[in-house]
Structure formats: structure tokens, C-alpha cells
């Protein structure tokens, strides 16, 4: 019973925090543009409005299931990452397996989304999906090499072990122990968040809105919620991998907030790459950086 309560609390808190972060990022982006921007609660309003709109369009089974896939992937990652170290609410469900399963489940959500968008039959959605998968295979490479470098260096693939190895002060954080691998992982974080200059999937000027072109009403509401949950799951994973995990709720909020603001600020001031430029950059720069640390660790 306590586990079920913990799961509900974790999901609800992550959803609220994810939507709030999205609202804050919209305001920050607007202030960088010199605008007032929407209220920070705007994403809650949008999600509620979309949820209450009529839904009368569907394009097949996969189209229905895609938002569920995305939410399921996000919830699975959230339940397996140690969110707050030692906290009975969030630590109980923490998964003692290896970090690669988490990366795989993160990929699973995106893949479901890709299949759903493909099922919608809209040409823009299909173009966006092919771009997204090409880009994903590029940044997953550098991110995976970075994770391998850290895991080899710490002699553990277990996410709990990686977090436990960083508890001896700030200097023991992986971002300082493995600076090149961390730089590679943080560069891979930008396309993961679909931030510019890697925003080729949504690309408003060419393929307006991309994969969710045909999604409306409740589907879109679920997708927004899934994206918020997924965002928090990714942030928690990165905080656990590179920034020593979170020892309290306050440190979790501060660390995830600062990490979330990094792609928002980068995104506001950069133009967008073309597809081949983005993929070329991801194959060379972050991958090379991650490889430097991997070789250093293995030697």
C-alpha cells in the first residue's frame, strides 16, 4: 500500500514540477526576447483545456497508443531512478539494475511516439520522425559512450552505485571526475530536450510542429503531460549520473531547475542546424569528447 502511495506521489509531483518548469521556461524565453511572456501556470491551463476538448479524429491503433507509450516510458524511468537519496517515498521503488535499461526505456517512449506519428499518415509527421530517429541514433551514441566511461571508471553499471560513489563532496561529482564524458553527455542533453540548435524535429519553419501534427484534444493533452514527466525523468537521470544525485527535496529542485534552464537559455540564442549539420556535429564533437574520457579511464 505504501508503495502505491509513493508511486502516486512521485508521479503527481513530477507532473506538477515538469509542467511548472515548462511554464517557467516559456517565461524565461519571453524575457530573453524582451516580451512579458505567459504566466508560469500556462502549461497547466493548456493541458486542462486540451483534456476537455472534443476528440473525434483517429487514425488507427498505434495513433491511439503512442501517447500511452510515451507516458509509460516516462513513468518507468521515474520509478527506477533514485530521485531523492535515502527518502522513503522515492527511494523504495528505486531500481537496483543497470543504467542501460533506463536508457533503453527512454528510447522506448520516443519509439512509440514515432510509430504513432507514422500511423497518422501526415507527411510532415513522417519527415519529422525520420529526422528525429536519425538524430536520436547520433546523440544516443555519445550519451552511451559517456555513460560507459563513467561506469567503467566507477566499476559499476548500477545507477545506485553511481549515485553512491558521488557522496564524498562536490569534488566527487562525476562532472568533475569525468569532465570530457560529462561535456559529451551535456551536449547530448540539448537534442534530447529538442533545444536549438538541434530543434530539427519540431522545426516550425519547415515542418510545422512535426510528429504531433495530427494529434488533437486529449491525445495532445496526454502528450504534453508525457513530455513534462519525461523531462523530469531525464533531469533526474542526469542529476544522478553527473551531479551527485539529490540528497534532499530542495537540492533536487535546485539541481533539476538549473539543469533545465541550460537548454532553455542555449535554445533562446541559437539558430537551428540543418539535419545533416546537426547529425555531423553530434557524431563528431560530443562523441569524441566522451571517447577521450573512455580511453583515459581504460588506460
Amino acid at each position, binding site marked *: 500500500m505504501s508503495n502505491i502511495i509513493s508511486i502516486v506521489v512521485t508521479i503527481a509531483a513530477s507532473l506538477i514540477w515538469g509542467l511548472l518548469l515548462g511554464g517557467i521556461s*516559456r517565461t524565461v524565453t*519571453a524575457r530573453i*526576447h*524582451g*516580451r*512579458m*511572456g*505567459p*504566466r508560469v501556470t*500556462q502549461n497547466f*491551463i*493548456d493541458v*486542462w*483545456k486540451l483534456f*476537455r*476538448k*472534443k*476528440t*473525434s*479524429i483517429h*487514425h488507427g491503433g498505434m495513433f491511439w497508443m503512442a501517447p500511452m507509450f510515451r507516458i509509460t516510458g516516462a513513468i518507468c524511468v521515474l520509478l527506477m531512478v533514485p530521485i531523492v537519496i535515502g527518502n522513503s517515498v522515492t527511494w523504495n521503488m528505486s531500481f537496483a539494475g543497470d543504467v542501460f535499461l533506463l536508457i533503453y526505456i527512454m528510447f522506448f517512449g520516443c519509439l512509440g511516439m514515432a510509430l504513432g506519428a507514422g500511423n497518422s499518415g501526415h507527411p510532415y509527421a513522417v519527415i519529422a520522425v525520420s529526422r528525429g530517429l536519425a538524430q536520436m541514433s547520433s546523440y544516443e551514441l555519445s550519451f552511451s559512450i559517456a555513460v560507459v566511461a563513467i561506469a567503467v571508471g566507477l566499476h559499476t553499471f548500477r545507477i545506485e552505485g553511481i549515485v553512491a560513489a558521488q557522496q564524498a563532496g562536490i569534488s566527487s561529482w562525476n562532472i568533475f571526475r569525468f569532465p570530457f564524458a560529462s561535456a559529451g553527455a551535456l551536449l547530448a542533453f540539448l537534442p534530447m530536450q529538442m533545444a536549438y540548435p538541434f530543434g530539427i524535429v519540431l522545426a*516550425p519553419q519547415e515542418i*510545422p*510542429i512535426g510528429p*504531433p*501534427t*495530427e*494529434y*488533437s*484534444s486529449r491525445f*495532445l493533452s496526454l502528450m504534453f503531460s508525457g513530455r513534462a514527466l519525461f523531462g523530469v525523468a531525464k533531469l533526474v537521470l542526469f542529476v544522478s549520473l553527473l551531479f551527485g544525485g539529490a540528497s534532499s527535496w530542495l537540492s533536487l529542485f535546485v539541481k533539476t531547475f538549473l539543469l533545465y534552464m541550460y537548454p532553455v537559455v542555449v535554445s533562446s540564442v541559437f539558430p537551428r542546424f540543418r539535419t545533416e549539420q546537426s547529425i555531423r556535429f553530434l557524431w563528431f564533437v560530443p562523441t569524441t569528447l566522451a571517447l577521450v574520457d573512455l580511453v583515459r579511464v581504460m588506460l
Partner: protein
Amino acid sequence: MYCNQRPEKPGNKIEVFEKITNMARANSLWVTAYGTGCGAIELRPLHTSRFDMERFGIAMRPTPRQADVLIISGYLATKTLKRVIRVYEQIQDPKYIVALGSCTINGGMYFDSYNTLNVLDKYLPVDVYVMGCMPRPEAIIDGFSLLMRKIKDGRAQGWKHYKENLDYYRENQKKIITDWDLPDYNW
């Protein structure tokens, strides 16, 4: 994907629930990015830091699937009407129409043109008119604030009116669109 049944009439909703939802609807208006006439040029400044319509929760969506508002921006040519009807019927309920400029009210400077509609309300249910030729961005924002008030009060019911009086609208539409090749009920 077409539907060949008459649209269902909306059922009764729980009042308290509907009031909260109306607040959300009013503060999150997504506009279809579709300019039908010269008035679309006055919508661009609304994105800029000078006018910034995002502060009211108004955003542009590139697809009618995700939009709430359709702006008829100025004159509506007879050729464009078919596309506008198609776009309007793809928007999911509830949906609203804002009509800009004199042309949508009485034809404006095109009142005697052979290919421009004079009174838009006969063909599509308009919720808010914004007068002017062309209306300045301030006037458009004023029109949107009127629409927001109407939605909050539950008075923006053009979409319901359209469903209930579909035969009247279809008859008028078919008088203009002589090569009608759409199904009669296509949402």
C-alpha cells in the same frame, strides 16, 4: 477521413466543471495560422515584443487539429470559402471565429466585387467582429479580450449554433460554392 453522419448535438455538462473549463479555454486560445486576406499582415506584430499576445495565453498553431480559434483576416474570396469551411470543420469543439475588418461585416471596399463575400455570418458563425480597415493590433487584442470575456461567461456558442443550424449554413455555402465536392458532414 470523412464522416458521413450529421454532427451530434453537444450534451449537457456539469455546470461547475464547465465554468472552470471555460476559464481555462479563455486563457489558452490557440489560433489556426491561416490568413485568408490582407488582415493577416496585422497579426504578425502580435507576436513581437511590442504587443506580445502570448501574455494572454494566445498562441499560433500550424494545424487546425490543435486550434481553438479561426481568424478570418479580412476579405474572404469565394474560392477561399471552401478551404475555410474545411479548416473550420476540422477544428475540434469548442471553437470560435474572430472576423477582422469591414470586409467580413458588409464587404467593405469590396462590397460590389464579383468574387468576395459580403456578410460572413451567413456562411460561418462569427463570435467576435473586429472593425476597421485594417484593424490595428491593439484593436485585435481588444477583440480577443472580448472573446475571452464571452468564453468565460459561456456566451461564445457559435460552434453550437453552427451544428444546430447546419442546414441553413450549408444552403448559403452551396449558393456560393457552385462546384461543391465535399461530403455534407465532414468532421
